[in-house]
């Protein structure tokens, strides 16, 4: 059993509730235990970092200080949390002046951070620590013939944190193949879905989402998988608005990569939150007999 501190991120209580369920379901077969960080706060994400840079790094560092007491790697399934917490870590190392100020501020709140926590993305942990061989050995329900587009999004691979290539990553492609499914070519695999601009600049974000769906559909994808809560929501919940705006007829289910793994591991649909998708995955997954009931 491998142990990690777990930072789920705010989305996993809301729009990405299916991500949390499926992670819980596949942890056991993979031999990993995620211990949720007690009383973690929002990492701040891009909005806080674009409003006040000092406050933003301080509230992100509160989480790092809490995690440091546990002495384990801090694992998050959210690409934005992954980037934000890593950025706090690297900025504290890069700017000694910032470090002094943050240390002083945290001390006033009774906290201390020495800079030793390693922040990792769940996808990276599953691929590097568990490995494809171990994943293959757990597959009881090979997804033969299922065409899956791997959508990495931006902040898992950029700015380059060393997990995979920033523009043409391959790790999820390999993961899909290890489950018996077929990774489709997906030229836009690491292009932007618009992120939170879907709220403030919806026309712009809907255009980006349309391009992604078009590229996946053109390559014959029956479903798309992603390791990012915001990407999933944008492509899934807003697919109807894309269809209405651009007179398209996309109906591509968007799954978390952990849900697809769960299906291949023979875990039932409900435990994987497959009924949570706005675009139903029933049709795509019907041959594999785990359709949501």
């Amino acid at each position, binding site marked *: 059993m491998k142990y990690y501190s777990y930072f789920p991120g705010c989305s996993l209580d809301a*729009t990405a509730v299916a991500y949390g369920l499926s992670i819980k379901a596949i942890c056991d077969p993979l031999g990993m235990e995620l211990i949720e960080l007690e009383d973690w706060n929002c990492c701040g994400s891009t909005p806080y970092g674009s409003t006040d840079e000092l406050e933003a790094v301080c509230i992100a560092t509160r989480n790092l200080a809490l995690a440091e007491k546990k002495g384990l790697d801090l694992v998050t399934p959210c690409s934005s949390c992954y980037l934000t917490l890593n950025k706090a870590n690297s900025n504290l190392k890069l700017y000694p002046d910032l470090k002094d100020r943050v240390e002083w501020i945290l001390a006033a709140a009774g906290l201390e951070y020495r800079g030793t926590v390693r922040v990792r993305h769940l996808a990276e942990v599953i691929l590097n620590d568990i490995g494809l061989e171990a994943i293959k050995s757990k597959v009881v329900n090979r997804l033969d013939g299922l065409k899956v587009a791997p959508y990495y999004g931006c902040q898992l691979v950029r700015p380059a944190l060393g997990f995979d290539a920033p523009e043409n990553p391959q790790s999820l492609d390999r993961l899909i193949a290890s489950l018996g499914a077929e990774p489709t070519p997906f030229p836009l695999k690491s292009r932007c879905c618009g992120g939170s601009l879907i709220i403030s*600049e919806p026309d712009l974000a809907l255009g980006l989402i349309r391009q992604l769906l078009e590229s996946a559909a053109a390559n014959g994808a029956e479903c798309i998988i992603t390791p990012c809560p915001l990407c999933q929501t944008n492509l899934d919940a807003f697919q109807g608005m894309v269809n209405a705006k651009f007179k398209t007829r996309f109906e591509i289910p968007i799954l978390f990569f952990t849900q697809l793994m769960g299906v291949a591991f023979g875990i039932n649909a409900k435990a994987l939150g497959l009924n949570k998708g706005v675009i139903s995955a029933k049709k795509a997954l019907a041959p594999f007999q785990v359709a949501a009931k």
Partner: protein
Amino acid sequence: MGTKVYFMIKTAEEAGQEGYEQVLKALEAIPEVESIEPASGDYDLVARVDVPKRVVPVANKILESGGVKRLEVIRVEPLEPNPFMEEVCSIPGGESVLWCAQCGMCSASCPNVAQMDYSPRKIIALIRAGNRNQVLGSNSMGVCASCYLCTVRCPREVKITELMHALECLATRHELTSAKTATPMMHRFFVDIIKRNGRAHEFGLMLRFYLRTNPFAAIKMLPMALKLLLHGRMPLRARRIKGTEQLKVIIHEAQIMGGAI
């Protein structure tokens, strides 16, 4: 706002000593020329020139003064100190504007550049020119989706996305944000929720944002929000952490140190 430009000048060889002096006199008569020094190497003279706006008209004046064969710009620097540049450089990531080569790779890579008042490359050029209000009042930061494609492609490792965040922080602090984009307001509402609860809350954010900006847009979003609600993905109540008091202390101390209080 102007710049100081250094020209290397090659005089026409056939002119001789007398001609050389005439060339010097003609150059000194140009009002923008501040000083002329002899130079060694491929060129004969180096001229320091105050350029009020554009370099080319001044370069043409020098070329047309008679006796100048060719010239080259070797250095351009701001005429006055640039406090905006210093402001930007003091924020983590902002200092990288110093080594931008203005190649334009960032602008060519940006998925949203068509909607920007100024492309990322232009933003950096404007910072260097000290055009504070033009930069902070632009919508460029508000339509940046933080996809970091510019950052990984930049050959000089300029942290363009971080720079965009830093500029939005400055614009928000000094109330200069563009009216053309609602993103900074959305960001502020997001931050307000975190300050109160310690956690993000999508429903609360969208509700407040749409009521404030455009209730009609909310109607368009309603079917989508309803679907999320029915799938158990949009909790109406915000979650709250136990450590909200601790968070309050952290934010208060940061505000004191940042000069906001």
